[in-house]
């Protein structure tokens, strides 16, 4: 187990280092002068030069790369060009929206998808199965931003139960903050549930076809006991993989839904930073996202080991 973790951590470090190189080089190649963008079309050349010096853009690229990575290693993420505040603060402010949102969405997704998937698999080719499959097909087909707009039309404009969007901040209390995340979490969660329900159904069906399931049934175990003890545990392996992928995707990829609900999440910060050429924020945000994805993968790997003892034995 120690060797397993050590290898994983090494891969993690290498992945992050590669990510840092890629994001730095891409931003070097990308056209666009942050100083010009900040000062606008009427700025004079001497004003632009003054700002570029202030932002440290007059240094050569390798020097800037080393300074940046050195800062990351010592926990100093630098100061945002546009906002003038520490990037660590900016990212923290956004993470406290994005991480709970992704968590809630996955909670909704698994709470809906696992029972539905199990139901569909156990009633294969019967009306319940068709119903679940139809829901799944619909969920995959409907774009989540459109579903989000529908929820706003129903629950905000029609019924007035929720605000149309925005995030009051955790300072406003847990209730209002959770309330503002409810519609977005359902928007993201239900569309992810559609995919997850399909995966669950086929994973369970695959396991149900295994010889050991027939053996278990033959030795007299009830359907329910077989489901719990033999089928579910084995089916969880592909399901865990998908849940991990979905969670990692939601951390950075919820931007479209963040736009619909005008939530100040990490995806939107990244998007704004790219269009404003706030390079330090882009670089740091990408690194934080990469680190989180890698961490989620690590957790999934550890979960595998807990669910399925075989890789451990092999190692």
């Amino acid at each position, binding site marked *: 187990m120690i060797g397993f973790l050590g290898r994983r951590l090494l891969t993690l470090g290498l992945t992050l280092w590669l990510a840092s190189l890629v994001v730095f080089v891409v931003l070097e190649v*990308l*056209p*666009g*002068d*942050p100083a*010009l*963008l*900040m*000062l*606008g*079309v*009427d*700025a*004079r050349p*001497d*004003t632009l030069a*003054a*700002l570029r010096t*202030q932002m440290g853009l007059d240094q050569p690229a390798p020097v800037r790369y080393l300074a940046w990575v050195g800062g990351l290693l010592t926990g100093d993420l630098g100061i945002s060009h*546009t906002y*003038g505040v520490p990037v660590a603060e*900016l990212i923290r*402010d*956004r993470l406290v929206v994005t991480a709970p949102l992704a968590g809630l969405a996955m909670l909704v997704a698994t709470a809906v998808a696992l029972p539905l998937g199990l139901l569909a698999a156990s009633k294969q080719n019967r009306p319940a199965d*068709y*119903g679940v*499959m*139809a*829901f799944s*097909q*619909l969920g995959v*087909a*409907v774009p989540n931003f459109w579903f989000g*707009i*529908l929820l*706003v*039309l*129903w629950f*905000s*404009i*029609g019924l*007035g139960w929720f*605000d*149309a*969007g*925005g*995030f*009051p*901040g955790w*300072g406003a209390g847990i209730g209002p903050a959770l309330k503002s995340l409810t519609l977005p979490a359902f928007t993201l969660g239900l569309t992810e549930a559609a995919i997850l329900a399909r995966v669950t159904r086929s994973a369970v069906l695959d396991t149900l076809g295994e010889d050991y399931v027939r053996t278990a049934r033959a030795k007299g175990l009830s359907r329910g006991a077989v489901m719990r003890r033999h089928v579910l545990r084995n089916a969880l392996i592909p399901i865990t993989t998908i849940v991990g992928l979905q969670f990692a995707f939601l951390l950075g990829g919820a931007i479209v839904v963040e*736009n*619909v*609900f*005008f*939530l*100040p*999440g990490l995806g*939107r*910060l990244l998007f704004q930073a790219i*269009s404003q050429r706030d390079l330090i924020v882009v670089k740091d945000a990408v690194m934080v996202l990469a680190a989180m994805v890698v961490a989620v993968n690590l957790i999934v790997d550890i979960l595998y080991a807990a669910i399925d003892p075989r890789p451990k034995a092999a190692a």
Partner: protein
Amino acid sequence: MKFLPVLLTAILLATGTVAMTMTPTGAAAQNRDRIVIGMQLEPPHLDPTAGAAAAIDEVTYSNLFESLTRIDEHGEVISGLAERWDVSADGLTYTFHLRGGVKYHDGTAFDSADVKFALERARGDGSVNAQKGYFAAIKTVETPDPLTVTVTLSRPDGQFLFNMGSNDAAIVAPESAETNKQRPVGTGPFKFDRWVSGDRIVLVRNPDFRDPATPKLNEVVFRFISDPAAQLNAVRSGDVDAFPNFGATESLPILEADKNFVVKVGTTEGETVLALNNGRKPFSDIHVRRALAHAVNRQDVVDGAMFGYGTPIGSHFAPHRTGYVDLTALYPYDPSRAKDLLAQAGYPNGFDAVIRLPPPVYARRAGEIIAAQLAEVGIRLRIEPMEWAPWLEQVFRGRDYDMTIVSHVEPLDIDIYNRPDYYFNYHSDRFAAVMDELSRTIEPNRRATLYGDAQRIIAEDSVNVFLFQLPKAGVQRAGLTGLWENSPVPANDVTAVSWK
């Protein structure tokens, strides 16, 4: 087996359509001493003397910060921190008489030393002021007493009082200048309260403001909503009370028909032009430029790109400004005349060109319509959408383009046609002479005449295809009064806003 998903989709679509047509129940009871204003973009920071972003001005102008003079809703110069001023006969010396009893939000007193500090800082060597040019004519700033400032110019500047009323000329205090980006300290009727990053900025009433009757509200909240559909939802659900620059132009008729809302369409200083690279073939040929002017149907562009909001223009000048000359009839829409002109220029079969479009919706939509219109006369346009950053670097600064569409939003900025190395690549001695005389002229009637001459010269040279004046299209809840209808400078001046 396949019919079930199809059926369910149909049901969902149908219920969705029903939901769309449901009338809004509106928000809960309005809070009468508070207003929530929606904005498309969040400001990067709140220091108007260190950035060009209009969003900074839309939060801070006249609310948090004040300048020597002040611009009102109609673009007129009124008194600001200076109660009145005298101008010497040669137009070189401005004596500003400051208001007494003015305090900054941190309790420090305001006097002439602050004015001197702010002006010297804006024009100094390390200045990062986006409009440093506004201060270029200043020779000296003197403070004979705490309530008098004498500014001497090296040359007359007809725009000086207007420029001194801009947010870029805000009078910041030496104690707080460096921290204004995050914790702005000004002299205005509202104080900065808090900033929920990415979501909102909250201002509260300044209890120590010199005029106890101002402001009328206790709290102003600016919320940032970039997606047009989300803007519409926020307005209809009552999350915001007003959206002065509303992005979902196509939805304005829905709101106009609803008695809970009032739609306001005013003017801005934005001349929207189809800019041509006069330094590059074939646009260096005046016949080609005039052909383009004849080939573009402005009203169709306004209808298609702006949903009918926006006034066609025939030169680079705002129709609401003194000195405006209507030149829209100079090149009437006439495709066959355009073809003749192209043939004269040696392009009987038209030519290929690239139009590079920045992100604003007006530019992208107008670009598509213009590409279709130019195709009628044989000009084949390839549309290249761009982000702001590369547009600024390549098109604006690098002058690497054939055509582009952009709105020039600075007030009275016709002088850009006289700037060397400006991205139009245009030069005219006749125009330069008019601009030179204008910069030395203070007498209003003569200035208006000169502005008229300037408009005619660039229209006759058909430097660009002048499209339309960018409208300020906004929506607000019924019962709200005092918000600006026009936008002479970027601002959401809340000082006079109240609920009926």
